[in-house]
């Protein structure tokens, strides 16, 4: 009897397993698009926010009638680690039969999932992973809508060497730069980019430090930086450690101009935690205050609507930078790639993507859309995804560069 019971439960289990993983074969009148984001695990916080951006973009497009009259249906997957990312990519492609995927927030996860997509010739939009490695592999079906870590690093260093140096009363020659970064994928690749650009410009980098984003205490690091007396500190940090850093820097009376990124210093939580101490801090990356009149009219409207919807579902919170890029990536796909291709066939999507040439300010946010061609060292990179430089002023994050669309000047 017992054996029968065991056998039956095993059978039931396998039946459930196979049926559940077969995937829902939705009706033909929906565009089925897969998504892979870390919704659990160490990257969950950012992953969820990135995915929120994609979800809102999807709602917006569906309420406006969908793409070419057909609504978009997301088939979502959770990828807490690279192995899961690869597995879920396999599942989406073979069981759920998707031919286009939007993902992945973290560079490490992206590296793993995109391999599977490329092998299966599935179209892939990377909305946030910034590592240069992602586009360095010459993949044909991979397109990164956001700027790369190198683009952001280059802009930051250039701005420090020219604009900032002047304002501080220094020249390129006697400017003292320091670099600090967390040792994860984001920090490491951005840090490398910062160092490379600084070296290329012949700037004086007095100290370069890295640390684990999980550190409970950064005093030793701060004291070391304090000793080096930098004029500008370029920082690639996440929000948690940037808050800790600034607090401890204040305690240890380490004063310098901090130039961080939107992943850390540019996050809305930053000003919530630091209050007045946030003023003056710079953050490169996603341009803040997107609804600026100098943008093309349509992107302005889109961004404003995005902000409104986000605030409604997030207790009045202003969108996180990572949600903005999630939104922008999905929006580019829904507005420019999919409707022009008219199909989810990866080759057609790819051809359409490569043919796009939309000037900056007319795409999503203040970006344009133009992907690097195959053969380029960063094939698939959106060359018109320009980062911007922001500064906290009176508790608000203002865009100070590029000057054409800036809302304030550097203080």
């Amino acid at each position: 009897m017992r054996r029968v019971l065991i056998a039956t439960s095993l059978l039931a289990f396998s039946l459930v397993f196979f049926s559940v993983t077969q995937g829902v074969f939705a009706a033909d009148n929906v565009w089925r698009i897969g998504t892979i984001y870390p919704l659990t695990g160490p990257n969950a916080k950012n992953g969820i926010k990135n995915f929120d951006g994609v979800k809102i973009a999807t709602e917006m497009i569906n309420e406006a009638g969908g793409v070419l009259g057909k609504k978009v249906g997301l088939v979502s997957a959770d990828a807490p680690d690279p192995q899961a990312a690869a597995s879920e990519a396999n599942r989406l492609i073979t069981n759920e039969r998707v031919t286009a995927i939007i993902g992945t927030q973290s560079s490490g996860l992206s590296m793993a999932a995109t391999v599977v997509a490329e092998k299966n010739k599935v179209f892939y939009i990377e909305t946030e992973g910034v590592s240069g490695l992602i586009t360095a592999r010459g993949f044909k079906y991979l397109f990164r809508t956001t700027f790369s870590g190198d683009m952001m690093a280059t802009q930051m260093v250039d701005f420090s060497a020219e604009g900032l140096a002047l304002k501080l009363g220094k020249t390129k020659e006697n400017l003292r730069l320091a670099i600090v970064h967390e040792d994860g994928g984001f920090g490491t690749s951005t840090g490398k980019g910062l160092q490379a650009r600084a070296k290329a410009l012949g700037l004086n980098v007095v100290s370069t430090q890295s640390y684990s984003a999980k550190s409970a205490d950064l005093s030793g690091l701060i004291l070391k930086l304090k000793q080096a007396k930098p004029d500008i500190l370029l920082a690639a940090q996440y929000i948690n450690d940037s808050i800790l850093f600034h607090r401890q820097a204040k305690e240890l009376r380490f004063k310098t101009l901090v130039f961080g990124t939107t992943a850390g210093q540019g996050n809305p939580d930053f000003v919530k935690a630091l209050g007045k101490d946030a003023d003056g801090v710079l953050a490169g990356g996603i341009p803040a205050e997107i609804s600026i009149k100098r943008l093309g009219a349509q992107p302005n409207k889109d961004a404003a609507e995005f902000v409104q919807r986000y605030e409604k579902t997030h207790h009045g919170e202003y969108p996180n930078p990572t949600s903005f890029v999630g939104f922008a990536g999905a929006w580019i796909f829904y507005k420019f790639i999919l409707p022009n291709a008219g199909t989810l066939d990866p080759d057609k999507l790819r051809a359409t993507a490569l043919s796009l040439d939309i000037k900056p300010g007319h795409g999503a946010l203040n970006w344009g859309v133009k992907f690097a061609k195959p053969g380029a060292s960063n094939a698939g990179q959106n060359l018109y995804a320009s980062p911007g430089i922001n500064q906290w002023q009176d508790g608000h994050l203002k865009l100070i560069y590029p000057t054409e669309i800036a809302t304030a000047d550097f203080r």
Partner: protein
Amino acid sequence: MDISLFVQLLISGILIGGIYALASIGLTLIFGVMKIVNFAHGEFLMVAMYVTFWLFHYFAFDPYLSILVVMPLLFIIGIVTYQLFIRKTIGAPVLTQIFVTLGLSIVIQNLVLLFWSADFRTVSLSYASTPIVFGPYASLSIGEILVNPPRLIAFVLAISLSLVFYLFLKYSYTGKVIRATSQDRSAALLMGINIEKFYRLTFAIGILLVGIAGALMMPIYTVHPFVGFDFVLVMFVVVVLGGMGSIVGAMIGGIFIGIVEIFSSFLIGPDSKQAIYFLVFIAVLVIRPSGLFGLKGEEELEHIETID
């Protein structure tokens, strides 16, 4: 390195060490008395931090007052956890203990993620953001020494509570019973002590202590569902260094680790400081596994039988 910098580093190290010490005392107590490796210890710390945060967020409770709420709450949580899970692991192989508590930590982390989201939470105290300045002491050629108020308060409270607890263990009846149980279980049984009741009490006290540490830490750190794992590793290093079951050991071990961490972070680089204290950990385990204050040979753990 000039003396000013040395003193500043030393002070920073001691302050953070005091916090590590308090958090580890609960762990070493549980270890010493019940020989249980509680991998979920960091999660209780995290839960206490969240409780403190919510009290601050909704009722504007000062975190230091929250301790009065956190203490009984975590004590009860400790009792419940013991009854449901830990009780059955006494006498089970090491493997079971490790993985039951690991399983618990996974469950707690993800329940918190489910209910309270992955967002990082912080508490900022208006009265606590400006550093207290000591010095300069020109005669000793020491410049300004800067001290952060919440860390100082946490340190003072942590050390005081640790001392109170130490005295409790040494002089109170309950304390003596706990110590007897940890030294010789069979003898304690023969003396008519209800072992199970005291194991339960010990576990709950251990959780209560780490709960207080959590409340003290909230003004200093940020909390998110996965913050426990990072702390639990440090706590294990402290406990092994100090000697399992030794309160004094945990206190001294905590401070020592805090100092080692700050100095190596400055001298070698913040990236490698974790490696340093793990190397210290392995060194201790190899040279003197019983730790600084543990009983020599204590690492030869006898196999404890089940309670019945």
